């Protein structure tokens, strides 16, 4: 007990005596710890967000081509659509016994950079988004009427554009905001969706008919160009969709349809399962992760080296203090422990400040990711790195203290007590 008190006093005084170098090395350790924490938790959460939930859907059917592009476009509302497929394919799947749910998407317009997706009102009732959450319209709103020029706005898009129930807007052509010509058609917002913390929050949903009838939109479902005219029914043959979102009755259905569309047929591509498609994408970017991790580890090692160097350099000027403590009865072991404890304390303070650095880095990264994709990362979502980073920092700090501690341990008492006056 009194040994502990002695150690605490000695370490505290020593830290204070060398406040400048203590602060600098602790800040360095903080940077290192913060970097490791951020790299690991951002990577893990991003991976989980992009490979995990696809909003309750199991697969997406789209034009022949890249599964990745299909998933990015239909699930994450990024990239352009790989092209359209005929309405008949949607109908075929909607009637397939193995399919529990088929929802058509058409894309190609935006409002202030937020994508407009044409779909059916079935989407809002049919499934939950994410795990338990459904697409819920905020109180005071309702789902659009498929026969009218009405829109339901995702929460993030609503906040950014200022669209609220009763607002009107003109969609613009294309999926990006820049240089797009506004359509004549005016849409009325009938509802704003509750946040789902998924890319769907960035989407403005309108009836699929609205896309077909949008001025200048050409339908090629039949192979021939067709432009819809007001108050005239559009023949089914001309209709087309960008993607069909699918929910299967069983995973076996997914494998069977995968075989059918991707191996046997040539008219469409089925992206299934989402997780595999996105995981392959992350695998391609794996080197970037490894580089980032390597840099983070390197900074940790450098910060441990800085602790070592700063203590090592101060041991010489502390020889007299050490000799005095020894003359008062402190054992060499206590002196050794005090130095190791001091370096661990610097690393500990650094690791704690590292959580602040982590919070800053994480929040900036999360804000950018949310802005660009709608994916929401949670700052304090648990990751093992939150535990092992501080533990590793403190251990490395202790190890870094060993060499200066050996030097302190070996201090000769009598020669350093020689009167200096």
């Amino acid at each position, binding site marked *: *007990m*009194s040994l502990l*008190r*002695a150690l605490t*006093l000695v370490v505290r*005084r*020593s830290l*204070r*005596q060398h406040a400048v170098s203590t602060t600098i090395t602790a800040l360095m350790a903080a940077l290192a710890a913060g970097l490791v924490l951020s790299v690991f938790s951002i990577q893990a959460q991003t991976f989980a967000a992009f490979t995990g939930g696809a909003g309750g859907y199991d697969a997406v059917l789209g034009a022949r081509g890249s599964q990745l592009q299909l998933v990015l476009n239909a699930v994450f509302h990024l990239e352009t659509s790989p092209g359209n497929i005929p309405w008949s394919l949607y109908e075929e799947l909607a009637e397939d016994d193995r399919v529990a749910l088929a929802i058509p998407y058409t894309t190609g317009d935006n409002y202030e950079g937020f994508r407009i997706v044409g779909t059916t009102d079935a989407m809002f009732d049919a499934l939950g988004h994410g795990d338990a959450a459904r697409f819920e319209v905020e109180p005071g709103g309702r789902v659009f009427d498929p026969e009218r020029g009405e829109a339901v706005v995702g929460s993030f898009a609503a906040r950014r554009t200022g669209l609220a129930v009763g607002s009107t807007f003109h969609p613009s052509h294309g999926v990006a905001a820049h240089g797009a010509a506004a359509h004549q058609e005016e849409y009325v917002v009938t509802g704003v969706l509750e946040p789902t913390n998924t890319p769907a929050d960035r989407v403005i949903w309108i009836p699929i008919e609205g896309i077909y009838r949008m001025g200048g939109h050409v339908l090629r479902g039949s192979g021939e160009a067709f432009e819809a005219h007001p108050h005239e029914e559009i023949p089914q043959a001309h209709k087309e969709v960008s993607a069909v979102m699918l929910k299967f009755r069983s995973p076996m259905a997914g494998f069977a349809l995968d075989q059918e569309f991707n191996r046997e047929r040539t008219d469409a591509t089925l992206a299934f399962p989402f997780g595999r498609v996105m995981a392959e994408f992350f695998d391609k970017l794996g080197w970037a992760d490894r580089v980032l991790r390597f840099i983070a580890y390197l900074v940790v090692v450098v910060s441990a080296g800085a602790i070592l160097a700063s203590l090592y350099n101060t041991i010489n000027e502390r020889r*007299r*203090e050490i*000799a*005095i*403590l*020894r*003359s*008062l*009865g*402190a*054992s*060499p*072991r*206590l002196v050794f422990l005090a130095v190791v404890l001091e370096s661990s304390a610097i690393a500990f303070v650094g690791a704690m400040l590292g959580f602040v650095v982590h919070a800053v880095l994480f929040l900036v990264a999360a804000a950018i990711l949310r802005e660009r994709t709608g994916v929401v990362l949670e700052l304090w979502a648990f990751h093992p790195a939150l535990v092992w980073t501080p533990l590793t920092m403190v251990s490395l700090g202790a190890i870094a203290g060993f060499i200066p501690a050996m030097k302190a341990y070996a201090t000769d*008492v*009598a020669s350093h*007590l020689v*009167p*200096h*006056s």
Partner: protein
Amino acid sequence: MAAPTTTVLEVRSLLKRFRGPSGASTTVVDVPAFSLAAGEQVAIRGASGSGKTTFLNLIAGISTPDAGVVEIAGHDLTALRPSQRDRVRARHVGYVFQTFNLLQGYTALENVLAGMMFGRGTDEPFARDLLCRVGLADRLHHQPKALSVGQQQRVAVARALAGRPDLVLADEPTGNLDARRASEAMAMIRTLCRAQDAALLVVSHSPAILRRFDTVLDFAQLNRAAREVAA
């Protein structure tokens, strides 16, 4: 508490040599016999460079002798492991250095507590009481650099007595003070040692200090090495 007749310090055939830069070894301390009884106060007269600091360091266990025996309160330092020696020193010896050797960055009170914490453990009320008795009641939380030389010396004295030692060693304890203050400081040390029944061994070359002691030994008589040097 030790009875007055108990021996606190016993030195026999103590020998310490130093190897010079040329490789030749010089005997610095060669004391055949020396002892102190509990509560006894003895002054040793010695010029600087006569090996008296080395002699005190050997007694305190700060230096190890090449031969001989040092017994402190019944513990033979030369037979102990270094860590045990540290413990005996912390528990039984108080040391007032010529340059005080206060811990910079520690307050006066912390310096005194440091004199306790490796021995019997800290006793803050006692530390405060000691500082009050040496007249530093209003300087408890001052660091050495904020204290005068005389005040620093008194902190050093309080620290030496803080661990309730059986033996207080003082090496030119008043060397940095003027004659009047030196005399006062010496009186203070003697009073405090007597109050705690600690034996006191002072080494000095100052006649003003030596005059106050009943027993004054000549280090040149005690130390055969010095006699050789002198001869």
